[in-house]
C-alpha cells in the first residue's frame, strides 16, 4: 500500500507540466555543475603538476652554494585537490594552494583560486554539493508542498480515509515519494563525481559518509514538508510556510551563526599573527627574551640526537648548530600561536555545531565539506604537513653545513648533488578516521533532527489530525 501511494504520487506529479519543467531545469543545472567542477578540477590538476615540476626543477638546478643560502632560496609546494573537491569544493577556492618553504619563517598557503576570478565569482560556484544543499530542497518544496494540504482542500483526504487504509501507511507512501527525488539527485551527483575522479576516491568510506549524511538531511526535509503540509490548511499557506522555513534555515540561521562565531571567538588577522610571532621571537614567548642558556640547551639536544659529544673541539660548525637551535625555538613559537588560531577556529566550529539545533542545513553543509576534505580542518592539515616538510628541509640543510664545514666558514659551498637530498613534497590527506571523528557531531545533530521531525510527522500528525483532516 505504501508503494501504491508512492506510485500514484509520482504518476500524478509527472503529468503536471510544472513538475516536468522543474525536473528538467534541475537536471540541467546538475549536469552543468558537474561539468563546471570537473573542468576546474582538471585545470587545477594540470596546473598543480606543471607548477610542482617547475619548482622542483628550479630547486635541483641550483649551482654549488652555501646550504643556508639554499634554505633561503627555498621552494614552493602545492596543495593537491582531493577527488572530494569534485563533489564539494568547499573552502578550496578561498584558501591558499601554494606555500613557500624557507628557513626561519613558517609561510601560510597563499594564492587562493578565487583571486583569479572576476566579479562573477560573487554568485558562487555551481558545484554538485550546492545543487544538493540548496536547489534540491527547493525542488522538493516546489513539487510536494501540497502533498497533504492539497488532498485536504480537494476533499481527497476524506475519500482516501474511507478505504480503511491506516493513516501512517498513507503518510509513509507520501514520505517515500518525497525522498525518492533527492535520493536520485544524490546518487547522480555522487556517482558523477566518482566517475569524474576515474572511479578512484582517496578513502571510499568518505563516499559512504556523504551518502549517509545527505540521506539523513533529506529525511529531515521530507518529514518537515509532510508536517507543514499536514499542519497548514491550504496549499498556498503550505508553500508560504515552507519557503519561510527554508529561508530561515538556509540563509538566516547560517548567517547569524557565522557572525556570532566571529564575534564570540574572533580570530587574529594574518598581519596581527605575524606581529605577535615576530615579537615572541624577539622577546621570548612569555616576554622573557630567549636566553643563551636556552639556546645552549637546544643545541645540546641537537648534538645528542646526532650522537655527537658536546665538547669544545666537537667536529661541528657551531654557527649552523646555533641556527638549528634558533629554528627549534621558532618551532615552539609557531606551534604556540598556530595552536591558538586552530583552537579559535575549533571554537567557532563548535558554535556553528550548536547552532545546527536551529537549522539542519548547517550540519549537512559542514558534513559535506568534511567528507569531501575541503573544510577548514583539511586546510589546517595541509598547513601542518607543509610545516613538517619545512622543518625537515631546514634541518637537512643546516645539518649539511653543521657536519661539513667549520665554525665561521660562511664561504662553504655544498655540491649541487646535495639539493636532491631534499625529498619531494607528497601530501597525504587526513586519515578517514579523523574525518569521521569530526563528522560525528554533524551526524548526531542530523540524527536528532531526524528523530524530532519523525515524531512530529509520524506520531503527532496522525494523533492530532489523522484522517479527520
Amino acid at each position: 500500500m505504501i508503494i501504491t501511494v508512492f506510485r500514484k504520487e509520482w504518476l500524478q506529479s509527472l503529468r503536471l507540466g510544472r513538475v516536468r519543467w522543474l525536473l528538467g531545469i534541475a537536471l540541467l543545472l546538475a549536469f552543468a555543475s558537474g561539468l563546471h567542477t570537473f573542468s576546474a578540477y582538471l585545470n587545477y590538476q594540470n596546473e598543480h603538476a606543471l607548477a610542482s615540476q617547475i619548482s622542483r626543477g628550479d630547486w635541483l638546478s641550483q649551482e654549488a652554494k652555501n646550504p643556508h643560502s639554499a634554505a633561503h632560496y627555498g621552494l614552493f609546494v602545492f596543495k593537491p585537490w582531493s577527488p572530494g573537491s569534485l563533489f564539494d569544493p568547499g573552502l578550496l577556492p578561498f584558501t591558499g594552494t601554494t606555500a613557500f618553504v624557507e628557513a626561519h619563517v613558517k609561510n601560510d598557503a597563499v594564492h587562493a583560486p578565487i583571486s583569479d576570478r572576476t566579479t562573477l565569482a560573487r554568485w558562487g560556484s555551481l558545484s554538485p554539493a550546492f545543487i544538493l544543499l540548496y536547489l534540491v530542497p527547493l525542488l522538493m518544496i516546489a513539487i510536494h508542498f501540497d502533498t497533504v494540504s492539497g488532498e485536504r482542500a480537494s476533499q481527497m483526504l476524506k475519500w482516501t480515509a474511507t478505504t480503511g487504509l491506516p493513516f501512517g501507511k498513507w503518510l509513509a507512501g507520501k514520505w517515500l515519494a518525497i525522498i525518492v527525488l533527492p535520493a536520485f539527485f544524490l546518487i547522480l551527483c555522487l556517482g558523477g563525481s566518482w566517475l569524474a575522479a576515474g572511479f578512484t576516491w582517496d578513502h571510499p568510506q568518505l563516499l559512504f559518509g556523504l551518502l549517509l549524511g545527505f540521506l539523513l538531511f533529506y529525511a529531515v526535509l521530507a518529514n518537515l514538508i509532510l508536517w507543514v503540509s499536514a499542519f497548514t490548511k491550504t496549499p498556498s499557506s503550505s508553500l508560504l510556510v515552507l519557503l519561510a522555513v527554508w529561508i530561515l534555515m538556509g540563509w538566516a540561521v547560517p548567517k547569524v551563526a557565522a557572525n556570532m562565531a566571529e564575534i564570540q571567538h574572533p580570530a587574529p588577522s594574518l598581519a596581527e599573527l605575524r606581529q605577535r610571532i615576530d615579537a615572541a621571537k624577539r622577546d621570548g614567548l612569555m616576554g622573557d627574551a630567549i636566553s643563551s642558556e636556552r639556546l645552549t640547551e637546544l643545541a645540546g639536544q641537537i648534538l645528542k640526537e646526532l650522537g655527537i659529544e658536546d665538547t669544545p673541539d666537537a667536529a661541528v660548525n657551531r654557527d649552523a648548530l646555533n641556527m638549528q637551535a634558533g629554528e627549534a625555538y621558532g618551532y615552539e613559537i609557531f606551534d604556540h600561536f598556530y595552536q591558538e588560531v586552530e583552537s579559535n577556529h575549533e571554537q567557532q566550529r563548535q558554535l556553528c555545531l550548536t547552532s545546527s539545533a536551529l537549522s539542519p542545513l548547517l550540519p549537512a553543509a559542514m558534513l559535506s565539506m568534511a567528507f569531501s576534505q575541503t573544510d577548514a580542518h583539511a586546510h589546517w592539515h595541509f598547513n601542518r604537513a607543509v610545516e613538517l616538510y619545512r622543518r625537515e628541509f631546514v634541518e637537512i640543510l643546516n645539518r649539511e653545513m653543521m657536519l661539513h664545514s667549520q665554525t665561521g666558514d660562511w664561504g662553504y659551498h655544498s655540491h649541487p648533488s646535495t639539493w636532491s637530498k631534499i625529498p619531494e613534497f607528497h601530501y597525504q590527506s587526513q586519515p578517514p578516521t579523523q574525518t569521521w571523528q569530526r563528522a560525528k557531531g554533524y551526524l548526531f545533530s542530523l540524527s536528532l533532527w531526524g528523530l524530532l521531525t519523525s515524531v512530529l510527522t509520524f506520531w503527532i500528525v496522525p494523533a492530532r489530525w489523522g484522517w479527520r483532516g
Partner: protein
Amino acid sequence: MLQAENLTKYYGEHLALDSLNLSLSEGEIFCLLGPNGTGKTTTIHLFLNFIQPSKGRALVAGKCVGEHPLEARRNMAYIPEQVAFYGMLTGLENLAYFCQLAGKHFTQAEKLQFLARVGLPERAAKAQVRTYSKGMRQKVAVAIALARDAKAMVLDEPTSGLDPQASNALSATLLELKSAGVTVLMATHDVFRARETGDRVGIMRQGKLEHVMATNQITAQELEAAYLRCVQDVGTAV
C-alpha cells in the same frame, strides 16, 4: 448493518445531532431528508468516524466505528456531494488506486468491467478525470464502491447538480446494489428520488430525526407535504 445508538453531537454549545437511534438492515436503502443544517452530514461523518460523537455510538456491521475505525471503513463506501478524484489520473487509474488501498486487486479487464457496469465506456475510463462531468465522477465513485465489495454505502446529497438522466442512472445503480445486499444511507433534498429509491425515509429537523416512514406506505405527495411542513417549521423557528 448500520446502527446509531443515542448518537449525539455538539459543536461547542450548538446541538447538531440529538440522540439519533437508527437501525438499517442488510440490503435496505434509508434516505435522510431535511433542510440544510439539520444534522444529515453530521450523521454521515459520525458513521465514517470523521468526527467523534459527544454521546452515543455508531456501529457498522456490529463494530463501533470509534473503536474500530479501519474495520468499519473497510465495510463502507462513501460518496460525498462533490466527488473529487485525482484529476491528472484517468478514471481507470483512480479506480485501481482506491481499490488497491482497500486491499483489492483486479485485472485491467475487471476494472474496465466495473466502470462499464455504471455506464462509463472504456474510452471515457481512459481519459483524465479533470475532463469528467460531475455525473461521470460519480459513476467512478460508484464503480469503486462496487469493486470494493462494500457492505454499506453512505451518500451525501449525491443527486445535487446532476441532470435527470444521471440521477436516474444513480437510482438504478443503488437499486442494483440493494439487490446485492448492500445497505445504503443517503442524505438528500430530493424528495421524489428518496420516495422512489428508498425503503424508508427519515425527516430530520434541528438535529432530531422527527419522522420515519416506509416509502411503500405513503405517496410522493404525502412525503412532500411532510417535508415541507418540517421546512416551514424550521423557517418559523428561525
